[in-house]
């Protein structure tokens, strides 16, 4: 089964709530900054940008498995999408989470347009045998994540790094929660093989 990572374009960015996110002083400051920026304040937008771009850039870089400079184009695209949509931000989740959901859409579009890959971006086939990588050397965790296939990488980053639930990932990517779970399981297996290097055969 091959499932395209189709995100509904019509819907506004979904509010995902990662574990441990709660309202606080910073969140209140974000709300005020969002309101001011949406009202046309450039200084408020710049403050918002400086607060959230480092995390957004890291998130997009991991999702794309790209260099920071490549990811910056997607970050710019994210802000271009997020700014007109600031008025829709309702503080139901943190601004950072909301922004990452916009960033995820921008990253998906970037992958689909083949800016980085010539092939269509699809989730990995659930029924196909797991093709574990053949690397002689051990990788560090960051490199291993970047080496994963796009479908695996995205699910792993969203779940294991960013802390989203399978239901939230399913909602964001337009897939079933079961698909998300299956993809994560396989993504972890591949990542473990990458991290153990020559021990891959033991994993298989």
């Amino acid at each position, binding site marked *: 089964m091959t499932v395209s990572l189709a995100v509904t374009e019509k819907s506004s960015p979904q509010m995902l709530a990662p574990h441990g996110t709660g309202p606080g002083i910073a969140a209140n400051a974000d709300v005020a900054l969002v309101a001011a920026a949406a*009202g*046309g*304040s*450039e200084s408020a*937008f*710049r403050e918002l*940008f*400086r607060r959230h*771009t*480092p*995390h957004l*850039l*890291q998130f997009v*870089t991991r999702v794309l498995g790209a260099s*920071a*400079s490549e*990811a*910056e184009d997607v*970050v*710019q695209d994210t*802000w*271009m999408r997020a*700014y*007109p949509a600031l008025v829709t931000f309702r503080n139901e989740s943190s601004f950072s989470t909301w922004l990452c959901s916009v960033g995820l859409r921008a990253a998906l579009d970037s992958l689909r347009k083949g800016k980085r890959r010539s092939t269509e971006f699809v989730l990995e086939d659930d029924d196909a045998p797991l093709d574990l990588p053949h690397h002689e050397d*051990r990788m560090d*965790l*960051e490199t291993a994540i970047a080496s994963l296939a796009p479908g695996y990488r995205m699910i792993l980053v969203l779940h*294991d*790094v960013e802390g989203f639930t399978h239901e939230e990932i399913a909602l964001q990517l337009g897939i079933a929660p079961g698909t998300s779970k299956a993809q994560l*399981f396989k993504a*972890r297996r591949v*990542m*473990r093989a990458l*991290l*153990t290097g020559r021990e891959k055969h033991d*994993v298989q």
Partner: protein
Amino acid sequence: MMFSENHELSEQERTALAALPRELTPSDLLEERVVRALKSEGHFNRATRGRSQWTRAIVRIAAAIALFAGGVATGHYALSQPDTEKQTAPVNQASVSKPVPQNTSGAQTVKNSETVVAEREMWL
């Protein structure tokens, strides 16, 4: 680093994932790039643009009111003109020669001519 074969992440794996950096410093130019791109799409300074739109609307309304008042004044002046003419008519009639009637008949014209001739002869 050894990763377990369980479906769930081991404590070691969780720790390793949690230790991953959460932020990446963007290049210095990115902020300016984004702000410039947003400006080119007409964002920011919406408050100033809003003010100028209000100013334009107020000026338009004022111009419309001025036009309307001008129209009312002109209309009022035009309506008051016949009354003025009536008041000044006797003065004008005295200074202006009597117009020749247009619808007089031929006999009346002859009679008038004879009267004029008779008056001339009387004076001569």
